[in-house]
């Protein structure tokens, strides 16, 4: 039967034969669960009992939950501190690294190495750094200079930045590499023209380099914002004795979802939180794409 098909028909048969399993996979493992998550968000369910329809009850509960607002605020603090900080740092590093030739590969490696580490392992390393005297490195160094010790992870004001630092540190190398590729992609003729015109470095930077890096900047901003909005591994591992603590000062939305679903077994409520996370991610990336792509 296959023999009698035209070449075009044979192509169609082959294409769908290749796609059959993947299409099934995406349907069952991606699309169905997405729909299911939305459905569960309108139900009450503790995993053991029966699922009952709850309408907007979970969303209403979320709206009136002070912990949720704290978590929402924390998540945006991670985003609003982390994204600009890592953007500026990685740009400065890439901009200067690009101008160096001596041991260029070695320097690049130093900056990139943290990207290859696992968030869990590094969260524990940083957690150790943050301990009090005599355990923690930072406080030991401060003590050597006679500076009073700092409560990093136990203080409601210091804990969030202390957790954010390793997250920024770990992602920096990736962004540096992407920026360097972007900088290298700018045609040298622009710089040569600027040189002939006798333009200063600052003008070159603001009039040539940064405007032409727009696509790279858009990519990095969107990519890193999504990362900070979904922060979990670092927070969970640096505060395992009191996840998201002290007093929810470091708790991001993903940790709240994990807690509600797998410690509280309140599946409907947790699903409603995931729907909120999904919406936030979507809105933030669309807004950024629009803002950064236009003009």
């Amino acid at each position: 039967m296959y023999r009698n098909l035209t070449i075009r028909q044979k192509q169609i048969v082959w294409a769908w034969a290749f796609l059959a399993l993947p299409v099934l996979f995406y349907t069952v493992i991606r699309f169905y669960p997405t729909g299911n998550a939305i459905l569960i968000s309108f139900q009450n369910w503790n995993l053991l009992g029966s699922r009952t329809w709850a309408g907007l009850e979970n969303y209403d509960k979320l709206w009136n939950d002070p912990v949720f607002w704290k978590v929402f605020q924390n998540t945006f603090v991670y985003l609003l501190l982390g994204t600009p900080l890592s953007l500026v740092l990685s740009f400065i590093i890439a901009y200067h690294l690009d101008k160096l030739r001596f041991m260029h590969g070695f320097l690049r490696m130093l900056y990139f190495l943290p990207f290859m580490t696992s968030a869990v392992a590094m969260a524990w390393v940083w957690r150790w750094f943050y301990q009090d005297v005599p355990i923690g490195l930072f406080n030991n160094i401060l003590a050597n200079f006679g500076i009073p010790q700092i409560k990093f992870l136990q203080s409601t004001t210091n804990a969030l930045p202390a957790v954010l630092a390793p997250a920024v540190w770990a992602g920096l190398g990736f962004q540096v590499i992407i920026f360097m590729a972007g900088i290298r992609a700018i045609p040298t003729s622009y710089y040569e023209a600027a040189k002939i015109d006798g333009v200063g470095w600052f003008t070159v930077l603001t009039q040539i380099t940064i405007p032409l890096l727009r696509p790279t900047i858009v990519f990095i901003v969107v990519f890193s914002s999504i990362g900070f909005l979904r922060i979990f591994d670092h927070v969970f591992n640096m505060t395992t004795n009191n996840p998201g603590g002290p007093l929810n000062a470091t708790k991001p939305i993903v940790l709240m979802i994990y807690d509600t679903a797998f410690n509280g077994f309140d599946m409907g409520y947790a699903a409603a939180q995931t729907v909120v996370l999904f919406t936030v991610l979507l809105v933030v990336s669309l807004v950024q794409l629009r803002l950064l792509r236009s003009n």
Partner: protein
Amino acid sequence: MVAAPDIPRASSQALLTATPTKRPRNMGQIIRWFLLFIGGILMVMPIAYMISTSLKWPHEVYNVNLIPKDPTLDNYAYVLEDGRFYWWFVNSMIIATITTICNLLFDSLVGYTLCKFRFPGRKIVFIAILSTLMIPTEMLVIPWYLMSQTFGWLDSYWGIMFPGLMTAFGTFLMKQFFESVPDDFIEAARIDGLNELQIWWTVAMPLVKPALAALAIFVFLGNWTAFLWPLIVTNSVDMYTIPVGLSGFGDEADVAWELIMTGAAISTIPTLVVFLIFQRFIIRGVVMAGLKG
């Protein structure tokens, strides 16, 4: 997560083929070099301290010196003899390897099909797969957990692996790279009497090896360090992956910091070694994937 910005691919080549041509000629360059060098040293400090502490005796742990006075491998012996780390390492290795192989096969097959075949429904399939990039994993973990519970996948290798066997990111990356394979090659193979599966495997795949290598690195690293889903789906200590195991290990009250650092080192050193060997390759992969995906 989002469509790639349009940056010429030449950039990734330029980054790697750049040869040292200029030497630091003036004071400014020297200062710049030293500042970047100090910054780079600070960047690797946490990793250096992790390794240094894993080589220290308990009484020396709280000494801020980076170089251990009397290095020892006792911590490694202790942690590995304990047995748990050994299994977590093995679990992670099996899971990361199998998911990487599956991703390479399926992502490239789908990418190839979407790029080189003309058939009804092609656009819809492509858009549907791409749209899954917008769905965060966090939203799917609850349904995945329920699914695993129903089918008895909890606490098994299959349970840890199933969500990541194919990724839209990989499919998109591969599709982009198959664009560079000329249709003439495929036509010629058809005339030679190869079937479509043979053409994909013997003609097209060898031509996109760099992209496959980049994808392999990404998928392996991603699965090696994955935390949230393995944390949810596993519940017996023997089934933990290395990040999940390490997370719980660090929390045991009687465990000392030098042992935690040893565990952290065991989970990190393999990726660092791979990186040091394949450095140029991996950086090129990051650039390709970053700019394509």
